[in-house]
């Protein structure tokens, strides 16, 4: 236990060294302070942004978009994915189309979104939902298609109804895949929220940092980036915690 804390502190120390190096580089003015603010100015901008209420507002907007889009997409992805995954004909007919759509960059539908919804909040939300749909949907299809066949036999031997089989066997069996897909969908949601905000100029962290860059307010820009990193970290950790709770029947290996 003490050893672990020791290593933790060690890694914080290494991190602190990196930050100190950053400060030294910034102070040396090797790169103009217009482009590279030091950690001190970044911190200052962070504090100012929170004190003035700018960052909380932007954070709230971005988080709201991201989560709403993600939840809608996940729900749709699970339902549609379950239907497709449980039906062999559906998999045969729709599979290739899904495989074609899998490598499609989610941001490629942004122009289509603009065409359909204009530069609005709806556009950003729809693009987020559409982009976040696919990882969860594909993972769900895989999960439902890969249920251990022996368990289906067990359910037949026990005379379980179709609904009971889906709810008690297929769904829990697919849960690890579904959660992995949802994790990916969350990452996509964050990315598309930022991109959408930048393009549609909707208030949020994305548009915030873009404006900061355009007006050469580098400390605000870097502060915003740090905030986005923190947001990414917290959401990922949150999902990991949920996953660990729901999947504690698996023994985790590194």
């Amino acid at each position, binding site marked *: 236990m003490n050893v672990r804390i020791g*290593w*933790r502190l060690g*890694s*914080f120390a*290494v*991190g602190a060294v*990196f930050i100190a190096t950053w400060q030294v580089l910034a102070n040396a003015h090797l790169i103009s302070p217009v*482009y590279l603010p030091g950690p001190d100015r970044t911190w200052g901008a962070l504090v100012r942004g929170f004190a003035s209420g700018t960052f909380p507002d932007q954070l709230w907007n971005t988080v709201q978009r991201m989560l709403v889009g993600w939840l809608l997409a996940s729900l749709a992805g699970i339902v549609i994915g379950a239907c497709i995954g449980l039906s062999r004909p559906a998999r045969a*007919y*729709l*599979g*290739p*189309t899904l*495989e*074609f759509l*899998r*490598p*499609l*960059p*989610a*941001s*490629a539908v*942004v*122009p*289509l979104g*603009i*065409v*359909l919804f204009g530069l609005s909040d709806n556009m950003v939300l729809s693009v987020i939902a559409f982009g976040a749909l696919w*990882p969860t949907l*594909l*993972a769900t299809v*895989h999960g439902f298609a890969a249920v251990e066949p022996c368990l289906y036999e067990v359910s037949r031997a026990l005379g379980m109804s179709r609904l009971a089989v889906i709810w008690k066997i297929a769904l829990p069996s697919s849960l690890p*895949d579904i959660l*992995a*897909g949802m*994790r*990916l969908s969350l990452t996509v949601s964050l*990315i598309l929220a*930022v*991109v959408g905000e*930048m*393009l549609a100029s909707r208030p949020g*962290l*994305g548009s915030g*940092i*873009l404006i900061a*860059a*355009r007006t*050469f307010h580098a400390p605000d*820009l870097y502060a*915003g*980036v740090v905030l*986005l*990193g*923190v*947001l*990414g*970290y917290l959401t*990922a950790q949150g999902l990991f915690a949920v996953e660990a709770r729901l999947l504690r029947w698996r023994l985790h290996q*590194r």
Partner: protein
Amino acid sequence: MKRAAAVLRGAVFPLALIAIAQIAAMAVRLQSDTLASPAAVLAAGAGAFADGSILIATAQTLGNAFGGLALGGSAGLICGVLLGSSIVADRLMEFSVESLRPIPSVALIPVSMLTFGFGFRMEIAIVAFAAFWPVLILTRSAVSGVDAGLLDVARVLRLGPLARTVKIILPAALPRIFVAFRLAAGIALTVAVTVEVSTNPLGLGYNMMLAEQSLHPDLMLAYLLWIGIVGWALNFTINAAQRRFFGRSVQVRPVA
């Protein structure tokens, strides 16, 4: 015979969709700023091929994607080998890695824009950042997962660290490192297109935005379709290469 049947079955759905869209467009005599019939999309696409614009854009996007992949991937590979080989290094770097990793690559678009302006360097920088992490994480786990028996062999033969890395660790970890690059390649293409869609005025993403802004939905959809094809072709080629070189020993579902 079975393969052919499977392909045909898979084609039914998309072909049916396209046919319905075409018939609907013709029935309604579609003349709009927002939608286009499949025939118009194909025509616009053909036109863009004819005048070379789509090919130039593809070269730009792929060039940026591969440039970033090469840069970020090689850095990720080296760091991954280091962190995978040395528990000390891995533990000490934990905080730094876990702090920088969650930063979404798109958040760095304004930073890169500020530093490099518009153009190739800006995009390659962001792609490199995005490609670095999956390669780092997966290489690290591939290297640390090398069979302990092989490492014992290295010790018994008294191989120095460089020889051990090159002759034992890298070959043993190669299949999984390949998977890492496969994943990173997809990410590289996606990030490149994202950068072009949001800010950078070159490549497929930009051309698509341009078509949308100039009210050419047929051209825009043609670009969208082409991006899908390029993404699919890239994935397909890498999968084929993986099967060719590594056989069925590396069937990793690209889900997580």
